């Protein structure tokens, strides 16, 4: 089955998860949240969520604790850069390659 079935004749996208494709496959560095250092996780109140606000792909939840959808997180590192408590570390994907196999 080819792309003709989608019935479109232009490139046309609607807001929703995955519209840009599985952008998680681009990632070489994975953001990992240290819950001991993350403000809402530590204080058990809805606070901060600067990572949620800044993530350009909208893949961080506004929950306690925040979680990241690695299917679409492209590994840009903006969340780690913006986090006021430095709770997010960018870890080489190769470190996870073995454990996920």
């Amino acid at each position: 089955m080819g792309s003709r079935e989608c019935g479109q004749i232009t490139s046309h996208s609607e807001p929703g998860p995955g519209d840009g494709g599985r952008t998680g496959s681009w990632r070489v560095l994975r953001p990992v949240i240290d819950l001991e250092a993350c403000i809402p996780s530590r204080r058990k109140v809805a606070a901060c969520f600067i990572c949620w606000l800044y993530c350009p792909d909208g893949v961080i939840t506004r929950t306690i604790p925040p979680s990241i959808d690695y299917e679409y997180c492209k590994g840009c590192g903006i969340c780690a850069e913006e986090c006021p408590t430095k709770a997010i570390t960018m870890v080489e994907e190769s470190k996870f390659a073995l454990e996920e196999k």
Partner: protein
Amino acid sequence: MSIIESGNVAAALGVKLCRANVIAAYPITPQTPLTEKLSELVESGEMNAEYIPVESEHSALGVCIAASSTGARAFTATSANGLLYMHEQLHWAAGARLPIVMCVANRGVGAPWTVWNDQQDSLSQRDTGWIQLYAADHQEIINTVIKAYYVAEQTSIPVMVCYDGYILSHTHMPFEVPDQEKVDAFLPPFRPNYALDPSMPANLNTVTLPEPRNNIRGELAHGYMELRYLLHEGMIRAIEVVGEAEQRFNEIFSVSGTAYMDMYKCDDATYIAVAMGSLSLHLRVVADILRDEGIKLGIIGIKLYRPFPCGIVADALKDRDGIIVMEKAISYGYVGPLYSDICSCLYTQGLDGPSPGFPYVHNYILGLGGRTIRTIDLMDAIRPICTGKRIKDQPGWIGLKI
């Protein structure tokens, strides 16, 4: 109703009859009177449309692209360097599959400046994905504008209606203005495939990746190459749609026009001269005179240039002794663009595969930048070919004083 008016006014009246909703244009000679006429019609309330003045041709087409994306019937017009200034937006309008109609009053391209007629402007935009129709007189201009909206909306491909600057744009001729009721019957209101809707936000013409990818519903959506293929496929289908539009038009208006080309005295012709626009009518005079001398010359005026109705053109030309392609444009360093297309269609399409039997095709360049095309010069150029001579260095030039 029959009136005597200029070609530009014929075009404007066609746009009015089509009930265009949005007009955006920037004046350039020799197109200016067309947009002036439309602004008058809007200002006086005779036409219920939004006239949007812009600061450039690039913006004019940009406005039409936006308007058409919301489901409005959009129109613009230009000439020469103005058309070239739109170049990037031409590709965009076609790639976005928007049924915009644009008139091009054909004019030579600077440098050096010229305001006079040739067809280098629109022919150099051949590969932008627009359908190109060429009108040969005022009646064809107004009729073609009306058919253009039908074809554009049926195929989701923009259409350029081209006519010779000054020779047609500024001369006055009698022509029939079709009845509004019949135009409404011919051209139903525009129902776009997709129109921007604030309650269902979408991003149009988003970046595509080299490979197709899934959309949010998990369906495989096109990659760049699939969209290019669909535009090409749509263009090929447009050949049929242009024929269907002609048939519909002929029935509703009780006329007998032809869709792809006008043939004059071709039935018994051993030689055929091919041209586009008003030159094809001028050549009819030459055919009449040369026939008195015993030369069986026929004339073909090509009306649909892109998509090129290859099989139809090849069928009309393949059994002749010789073909003479007369052009007001050149692909510098090679030959005229129509000449290349005709050679290629004869070689590949009109026959059962490549054949050495197709007629010799001659090419003349003439009339650049409004250079006068004298009937006597046309006769002197065509007569030797019809008695078996060949042009020494193709293309030959008519009226060159160097």
